[in-house]
């Protein structure tokens, strides 16, 4: 695609931003042109979100300038930025749960002074939604929406405010493949209107599919530019500075069964059964992948096995003993580890330090606690062990984990759960939001862990991931397991079909 040379919409020059203990941006220059999708690639902690937050007026740079059409501008707040035409959709949404879609879109926007003219605004929102193919009901309340729908609301909010530079920070991490397609169609439409879209993702094939231009960041600096024609391998190398070896999968003979579910029924949050009559068997040293579109009962299934949700029917046995009546704690003590999908909300305590988070599971048993007394030295030692063994990058053990980048949070959580070599590991989207290298690291860890005898139940939306590490793949659809196949005997296409429920059973 050839582009006539035009003036950039925005130009960032020499942007420097430091946080306590880290330099997030170390002098970045970036020009954003109308009518392009510009992808930012980079490892976890490379400074992508920080740079975008500066452009969106959320952080103020320590040094550097921002030029809009040649004019130097100071962005003091997101409001300033949106008035200049920059809108950002964050990794964590900023919506008011109890309000409707239309109200959220209007909230904080200058147009209505005192009385919201909801009817005409709702019509406007509906028009925008149609125009960009971002379906969502303007009258629905946010809490009723799925994450994908919430993201559409965020995008519509920015379009409603006439954003000319739309920043999407890892928008696809939480989307189903179908939703990704829908998002990409909208992104292309926005680009064709001579607006710019800044797109952040760790998934190289997505970036290659949607971007017109790729900029790679490493350790707070721009280290390269590329066209979407570059091979994933070259891109990965540019990101991390060296080749990333693919984790080799070896298939061991399956061991004895360690976890068995029979006819499991589990209720979802809203009442009806989310898991219907699921039976599965997990053997020592095997990785069983569960494919499926998000929201088909995967979370409820794992929570029921972990002990966070009581099954409405069926049986559950672990090492040949019935565990249906055991608490989460009892199950953990017997060797059932769980990496939940909601890292910061459930698996970690955002306000706690690295040290405090390292002992969330065993805070009340030796060596962390003896009797009633909590031993800080032991806790710090454990945190240090995890930080060293799993390469958690953190300025110190005293940092609140909410200030770690997503990848480092995941490493800490992962390290804590597998440090004790569990008998069974339940892992839900363990590589979501992780960079290419960290993803391969997690894959290698999973494979090594299984080689050491741990049985792993891996839920993922990425077929590549499941095909790369699983011994067998099960597909979940509408709460049921609709097929279990050895990885070597099943094709992508077959799994895809099963995922949509149109199985040739």
């Amino acid at each position, binding site marked *: 695609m050839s582009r006539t040379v035009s003036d950039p919409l925005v130009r960032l020059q020499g942007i420097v931003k430091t946080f306590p203990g880290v330099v997030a941006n170390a002098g970045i220059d970036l020009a954003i042109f109308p009518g392009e999708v510009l992808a930012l690639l980079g490892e976890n902690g490379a400074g992508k979100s920080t740079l975008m937050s500066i452009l969106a007026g959320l952080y103020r740079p320590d040094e550097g300038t921002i030029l809009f059409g040649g004019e130097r501008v100071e962005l003091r707040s997101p409001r300033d930025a949106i008035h200049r035409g920059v809108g950002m959709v964050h990794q964590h949404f900023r919506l008011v749960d109890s309000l409707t879609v239309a109200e959220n879109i209007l909230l904080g926007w200058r147009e209505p002074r005192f009385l919201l003219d909801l009817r005409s605004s709702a019509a406007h929102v509906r028009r925008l939604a149609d125009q960009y193919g971002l379906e969502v009901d303007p009258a629905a309340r946010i809490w009723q929406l799925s994450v994908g729908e919430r993201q559409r609301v965020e995008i519509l909010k920015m379009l409603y405010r006439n954003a000319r530079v739309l920043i999407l920070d890892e928008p696809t991490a939480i989307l189903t493949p179908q939703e990704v397609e829908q998002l990409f169609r909208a992104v292309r439409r926005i680009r064709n209107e001579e607006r710019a879209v800044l797109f952040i993702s760790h998934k190289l094939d997505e970036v290659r599919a949607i971007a017109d231009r790729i900029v790679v960041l490493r350790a707070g600096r721009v280290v390269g530019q590329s066209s979407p024609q570059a091979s994933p391998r070259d891109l990965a190398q540019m990101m991390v500075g060296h080749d990333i070896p693919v984790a080799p999968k070896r298939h061991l003979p399956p061991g004895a069964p360690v976890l068995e579910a029979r006819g499991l029924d589990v209720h979802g949050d809203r009442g009806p059964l989310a898991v219907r009559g699921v039976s599965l068997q997990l053997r020592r040293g095997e990785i069983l992948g569960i494919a499926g579109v998000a929201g088909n009962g995967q979370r409820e299934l794992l929570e029921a096995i972990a002990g966070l949700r009581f099954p409405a029917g069926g049986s559950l046995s672990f090492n040949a003993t019935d565990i249906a009546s055991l608490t*989460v704690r009892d199950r953990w003590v017997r060797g059932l580890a769980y990496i939940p999908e909601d890292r910061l909300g459930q698996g970690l305590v955002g306000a706690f330090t690295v040290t405090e988070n390292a002992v969330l599971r065993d805070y009340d048993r030796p060596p962390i606690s003896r009797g009633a007394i909590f031993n800080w030295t032991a806790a710090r030692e454990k945190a240090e062990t995890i930080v060293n063994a799993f390469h958690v990058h953190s300025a110190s053990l005293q940092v609140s984990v909410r200030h770690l980048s997503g990848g480092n949070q995941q490493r800490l959580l992962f390290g804590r759960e597998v440090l004790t070599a569990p008998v069974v590991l339940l892992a839900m989207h363990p590589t979501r939001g992780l960079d290419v290298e960290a993803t391969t690291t997690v894959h290698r860890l999973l494979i090594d862990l299984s080689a050491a005898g741990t049985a792993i139940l891996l839920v993922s939306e990425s077929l590549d991931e499941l095909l790369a590490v699983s011994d067998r793949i099960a597909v979940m659809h509408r709460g049921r397991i609709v097929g279990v196949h050895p990885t070597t005997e099943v094709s992508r296409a077959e799994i895809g079909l099963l995922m949509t429920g149109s199985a040739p059973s």
Partner: protein
Amino acid sequence: MAGAAPFPEWLEVVAIRGGAGMAALAVGAIFLAATGHDPWRAYREMMIGALGSPFAIEQTIIKAIPLMLTGLGVALAFTMGLWNIGAEGQLVAGALAASWLALTASLPTLVMLPGLILLGAAGGAAWAFIPAVLKTFVGVNEIISTLMLNYIALLWVDYMVFGSWADPTAFSFPYSRPFPPQAHFPVLLGDIHIGLVLALIAALLLAGLLQRTHWGYEIRTIGASLPAARYAGMRVRRNVLLVMAASGALAGLAGVGEVSGVIHRIQQGISPGYGFTAIIVAWVARLNPWAVILVAVLFAALLNGGFVIQTAGVPAAIAYMIQALVLFLVLASEHLLRRVRRRRALSQTRAALQVGR
């Protein structure tokens, strides 16, 4: 421009917090002047009334004791995210329980005193247990239930002092018969009773509990993230019951201190709202037990100064107004404090980088 900041960190913290207190006084002064009082004189009188003589200091400490105990109780509940705003009622319930023992049993001092303390703590705990049970088993919001129970406890005092505990010599004044001498708290210095020791022990225990025991870790986790606490297998309901009871017990102790250590009987209005002021004390102290002790003394001084200036025709409400302003400005100063801390950390980061180059 890398370099060490000019002041040590603790000094900045103290300066900013102190500044917030000063600002509260300044706003109070504007209000005083606007209502036709001489702010300088009013403040001087308050200062003298609160700290200007051994007697004044003694009175201030006596008033600080119930603020310390209720403040600690509230801080404990808040740490777990339990919005116990019923310390006032729990204080009164503790006073009632202790009064029952003092007025109905004739026991030697050595049995009576521990009995009063235990029963008072139990009374406060029981009063707090009601909303805890309602919350865990019926899902009733504790903010409403703890608030409502305050009024029930206060009316119960009325019922007792006009009824079976009424002082026959007091005609219809709202107070009970005096306690027998065995039921008087021993004093340490002047009229300062042993409640002060109880409060200091309580702060020590609470600080130790929160930072050095696994139960404390559990309480802090539940307060910081309920889903994470459930994930870790913490028993949330049990902790709601226990922590509310402990919180109420501390407030109950404050009630015992008032009846056995100060007035030696029970009467209407035994507390000028200590249990409510405790909420402000706990917040201003950022839920830190030792800070609660300190803030309680400052607030008691304000309260005491407020009583004194009434005689000069200045409304005592000015003391409450300043307390509210202190809360407001201290919370606002947190923002400033965060910025200062960030700047400090930044300059250290940059200094480290420069060295590293």
